[in-house]
């Protein structure tokens, strides 16, 4: 298995607060990594750093062995290869669904309007949204919006997908439809890094689950191991709290 993404002692601070404190991780092609941990543990920041939405203070992030975290590097061509889906969808409210999906292929990849539309319709069909192509984001349910956001990201044919708590803003009954899409992506061999509070889902879909605490990966193991027999004391405490609150 070749390594798709490598994190090497990644550090990031916001002011005095250290959000990432030496994160090391190798992610293989087609591997699915789930980051778990309490709010503020650095899950989202880590994903934003990989997508270069935040710059890191120290360390390195390698994509196919190339350091993409070097300062002064043009981030745009790298972001094209890494798709990101956000907790609050971040859809463009002034564009209909199809335009949301086709904007970047047209403007960044230079596809013609027809080519982009074909690609957009195809994706929307795949995600069960073909009848909503002309709707505006505000007219859709949360689950539909999030699926549009995933389609928008997939339209760039990324090599890696970063999913940042993509079900946290959804009503419980809408979570399933979004997770179905993630399952399908895994089936297609997409390399994915996801931050999540859905322990059950992390357990089901991830090849490895990584527990983040105060900006450090304390434990990284296949789900059965991490959920079944967590080695680190902090992980045990965290999972116990999750169990106590009835979310596992």
């Amino acid at each position, binding site marked *: 298995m070749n390594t798709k993404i490598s994190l090497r002692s990644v550090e990031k601070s916001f002011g005095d607060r250290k959000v990432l404190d030496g994160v090391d991780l190798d992610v293989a092609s087609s591997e699915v990594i789930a980051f778990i941990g309490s709010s503020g543990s650095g899950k989202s920041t880590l994903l934003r750093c990989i997508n270069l*939405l935040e710059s890191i203070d120290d360390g390195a992030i390698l994509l196919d062995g190339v350091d993409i975290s070097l300062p002064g590097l043009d981030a*745009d061509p790298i*972001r094209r290869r890494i798709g990101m889906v*956000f907790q609050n969808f*971040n859809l463009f409210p002034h564009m209909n669904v199809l335009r949301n999906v086709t*904007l970047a292929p047209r403007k960044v990849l230079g596809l013609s309007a027809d080519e982009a539309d074909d690609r957009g319709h195809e994706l929307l069909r795949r995600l069960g949204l073909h009848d909503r192509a002309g709707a505006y984001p505000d007219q859709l349910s949360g689950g539909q919006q999030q699926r549009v956001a995933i389609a928008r990201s997939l339209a760039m044919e990324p090599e890696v997908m970063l999913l940042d708590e993509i079900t946290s803003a959804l009503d419980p009954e809408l979570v399933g439809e979004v997770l179905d899409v993630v399952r399908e992506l895994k089936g297609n061999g997409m390399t994915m890094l996801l931050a999540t509070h859905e322990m059950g889902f992390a357990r089901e879909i991830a090849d490895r689950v990584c527990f983040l605490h105060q900006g450090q990966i304390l434990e990284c193991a296949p789900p059965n191991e991490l959920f079944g027999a967590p080695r680190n004391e902090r992980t045990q405490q965290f999972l116990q709290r999750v169990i106590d609150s009835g979310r596992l």
Partner: protein
Amino acid sequence: MNETVPGTSDRPGTVASGTSHQPVSSREVRRRFERHQKRRSTLIALTSTLVVVGLLVALIPQTPGWYKVKRSFFDGDVFSETFPRLLEAFVKDVQIFLWCAPCILVWGMVLAVCRSVRTPALFPLRLFAAAYTDVFRGVPVILTILLIGFGVPGLGMDRPWNSPYLWGSVALVLTYSSYVAEVFRAGIESVHESQRAGARSLGLSSGQTLRFVVIPQAVRRVVPPLMNDLVSLQKDVALVSLIGPIEILRQAGIDKSKFANFTPYLGAALIFLALTIPETRFVDHLMARERRRTSGTTIR
């Protein structure tokens, strides 16, 4: 909401059943009370309006100067004689407005984008835009018109470069673009950071993000304040008369002197209203349509 009377509600019978001893009669009492309140407030509003209007109608003609004011401001003959000329002169106001407005919008947007640029290399641009808006927002329009309208033609250039229409318009564009730039800038800043994150994560450059994602949303949001500025512009076009052009205000002044009567001013005011009120309503209509189109539900 048609009713803004405090203490009334369209939903009778919202009594917490746990605390009421006699649920049915309590609900009836409340309903009766609310109906009574509503009727009472309507009555009060009606009475007070009638009293105020009645007093005005009764008292104004009692003032010692009313007879003279009536003659010099509400003269029907003067009105009908001057009105067509005013209307003709008003075409000039509309023309000035029509060529100024696009320039203002474009130039204002350029300034706003300059001020929103975050690249350090372009800091001078940002500084220029900031200084520009500070200066032209800080000087009364009328002074800018006088300074530019009398100053620049003084350079002695040939026609058409000495035209008061040209320099009056330039003064309006300079001033109003600084207002409009601030409006656009507020709109640009109101677009949430997550929209930029969404766009950048797809590989769009910062310029593309601004152009396709941020500015379209910003413009939609600022249409109402923008229209405010354009309606003001429509009125301030009349100030260009100070440096020469015979537009409606100047025409009204000429007719005032000719007839020794102020009625032409009233006519001019009516003409302005006939344009500005529909303008505002039209924009309200556009906004409502846009809201209906892009959102599922409308609050309020």
